[in-house]
């Protein structure tokens, strides 16, 4: 484990140089990424490293999709650990997450129908 810098571009320039000099075989970038995402992913792509990129930052996802071999999109970064561990309870939390998603979809569709019909009852209930 090596500390690079607390500054965004100090970190990215150090990371790129390090990856380039040592010809990294694999580059895994999961977490909160901002403008440095493409700099890191493109450097990795140029030296031919196997890359896995994942972030919940919607503005940076396209960069990871374009430059990485494998991209985790949004919620997938929170599921990866549970999915790979094969732990029953952790997998169970993923099932719960999917149920939450299903509930969200139902509420969205119901909300669209009700608002289109001129009723704001669902909005009132949810903002209570």
């Amino acid at each position, binding site marked *: 484990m*090596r*500390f690079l810098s*607390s*500054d*965004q*571009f100090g970190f*990215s*320039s150090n990371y790129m140089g390090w990856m380039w*000099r040592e010809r990294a075989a694999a580059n895994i970038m999961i977490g909160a990424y901002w*403008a440095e995402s*493409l*700099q890191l*992913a*493109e450097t990795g*792509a*140029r030296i031919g490293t196997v890359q896995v990129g994942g972030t*919940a930052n*919607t503005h940076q*996802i396209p*960069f990871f*999709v*374009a*430059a990485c071999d494998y991209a985790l*999109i*949004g*919620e*997938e*970064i*929170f*599921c990866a*650990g*549970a999915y790979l561990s094969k*732990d029953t*309870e*952790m997998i169970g*939390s*993923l099932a*719960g*997450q999917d149920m*939450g*998603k299903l509930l*969200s979809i139902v509420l969205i569709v119901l909300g669209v129908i009700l608002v289109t019909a001129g009723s704001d009852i669902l909005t009132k209930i949810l903002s209570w």
Partner: protein
Amino acid sequence: MAWYRRVEIPIILTIIFCLFQVVPYFFVVPAWESAAKDFVDWDAVMETFALFIGFSTLLMLHGRIVSQRRRGWYWSAWVLITMIGYTIVGIPIPALGLGKGTPLFEAIRLYVLTPLSGAMYASLGFWIASAAYRAFRARTLEAGILLLSGTLVMLANAPVGTAIWPTFTPIRKWIFDVPNMATMRAVTIGAALGAISLGARTLMGRERGYLRGGE
């Protein structure tokens, strides 16, 4: 295993401090809220300690490279000079003209750090061109759609595009407002649910990634 190395201790601490942050969302307990705010302040203190550890490891790493005259040792020497130099400049001794906000400190920040950061940010344009070249090769249907939508947005943004055909502007607006917005909302909702699920796993002590696997 020694008691202080047991994995249960950080898990118990995590659960306690998670609860301190979660409970004020649901219940109004002024004393609890005040304690939760104090813990957030502790976070800043711990970050400073972490930064100090980072500073120390950088000193050790680059010091070793310089002392062993490894390849590119002069770059490490430069890192040490700038790092130690700026640290000294930041030490608050107003009598010597040192400290945050002094002319020397601000000059280094304004005339060295800011232009360097600006240059790094500006280089993004070239990275985007390089990534776009790879992403825009229409090998699959998805890449073809990306190429088409990207071209339409670029034409709408470039003055020459709208001069040729003004309808590029409403097309760009539609792309941003309908398919792009819908996708971003879906990703945001999914990520929020994923974060809640991760939080629940952490709260129950099941998520142990932050403990290096923690078995």
